[in-house]
């Protein structure tokens, strides 16, 4: 993997990001590079800062120091080093380049499945209604919901809502997709259908950072696993390497042990 920032800059470059909520340090100098086409899964105990890290990447959350760049462009601030926050208009444009899928789906309840997908396409991408509708229908069929285009979120199951959530994010053609425990709120029998969609996106080369508790998925589908603990990156590497570190990394061992105890 290239580490030089000159000849092969990472698509996502998180460098020394720290953040505190009041006196609680939630991120402690987190650094992580993600290359185009990579699927990086983030694991770690609850409260270790996984959600906060993802939310910093599209600046839903600001941070105290460090830098986050996508395609070489500083996300939240006018230039690296300066702490001058971008204008809201600029931030909106930056955020349109990243997609996000939420644990609680967060579909717009007054819009149909197609309407949820079309909103960003028409308002942000400036597409015509007809074109946006076509794109929405394309993505809905990609996630197996072509027949639900005109259903409201309240009429869909959790798994279906989440697949609309994914379609809404990828229809914007983001450079990178952020997924935060997207199956945690689902009944176990609905997890598979959602993960299958993520897998197929990975096969298409979508760059993803995915916080998950689905260990089997992390092991099989990711190029690298990031293990977070206490607001820092405790281990990072290909799945095999990380799981092999269980013998040497005390935190990882106790996380996996507790994890197995609660899941099997």
């Amino acid at each position, binding site marked *: 993997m290239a580490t030089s920032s000159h000849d092969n800059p990472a698509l996502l470059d998180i460098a020394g990001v720290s953040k505190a909520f009041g006196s609680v340090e939630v991120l402690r100098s987190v650094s992580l590079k993600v290359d185009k086409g990579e699927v990086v899964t983030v694991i770690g105990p609850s409260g270790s800062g996984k959600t906060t890290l993802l939310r910093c990447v*599209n600046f*839903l959350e600001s941070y105290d120091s460090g830098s986050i760049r996508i395609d070489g462009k500083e996300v939240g601030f006018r230039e690296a080093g300066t702490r001058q926050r971008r204008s*809201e*208009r600029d931030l*909106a*444009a*930056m*955020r*349109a*380049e*990243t*997609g*996000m899928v*939420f644990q*609680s*789906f*967060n*579909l*717009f*309840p*007054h819009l149909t499945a197609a309407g949820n997908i079309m*909103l*960003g396409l028409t*308002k*942000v991408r400036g597409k015509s209604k007809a074109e946006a509708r076509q794109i929405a229908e394309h993505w809905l069929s990609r996630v197996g919901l072509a027949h639900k285009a005109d259903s*409201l979120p*309240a009429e869909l199951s959790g798994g279906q809502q989440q697949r609309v959530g994914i379609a*809404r*994010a990828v229809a*914007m053609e983001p450079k990178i997709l952020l997924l935060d425990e997207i199956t945690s709120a689902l009944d176990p029998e609905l997890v598979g259908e959602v993960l299958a969609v993520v897998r197929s996106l990975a096969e298409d080369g979508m760059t993803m950072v995915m916080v998950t508790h689905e260990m089997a998925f992390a092991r099989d589908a990711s190029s690298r696993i990031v293990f977070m603990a206490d607001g820092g990156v405790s281990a990072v590497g290909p799945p095999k390497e990380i799981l092999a570190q269980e013998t040497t990394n005390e935190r990882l061992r106790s996380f996996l042990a507790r994890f197995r105890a609660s899941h099997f």
Partner: protein
Amino acid sequence: MGYALNFNLIWRHFDKLWGGLLLSLELAVISIAIGVVIGLVLAVWYVSAGRVVRAIIAAYVEFIRNVPLILLVYLVFYGVPTVVDLAYSAPTSFVLTLSVYSGAYLVEVFRSGLEAVPRGQLDAGKAIGLTPWQRLTHVRLPTMLRITLPALSNTFLSLFKDTSVASVISVPELTYGAQWINFNTFRIVEVYLVTTAMYLLTGYVLLFALRLVERRFRAAR
């Protein structure tokens, strides 16, 4: 009881009641429309503003909610023109008063609705790249409307009844018409029976219409 009901005199002057009812409705519709604008603008401003603006808006709401409407009506109709060089008719004065009054109540309704919109929905709006204005108009307001519709209907209805206060400055709305007939015919029981029935009926019709609107919105959720 030696009182025999006789509605003949009421029917003879019924135009006073009918015209009064139409004026009551007109006063209510205009005041509520202005009040909705005041309420929406201030509520949106409130939820995005700093402490000073919030304190000022809260003070306006508190003031209005703690002063009886009838006092505000006197204040605006008799008080204001004696202090500043302004002249307006009684109906205009009342519409002004009820607008400001309803605005205060509606700020509260809209503010609590705006604050009840789940943060996740706003985050989702940010995440797809909507600007603050787009998030307001396409995400926050539609959800807020759904949340507040029942409270909104109740507020509208109670504001319609509040138009009766206009009678104290001789605006010829429904209650004033009733007083006029009472004064000229002394059929006090009959006139107030009929007037009450008219308020009730209009209230029911309004409520029915508002519930229809609510149901349409709820169906589209």
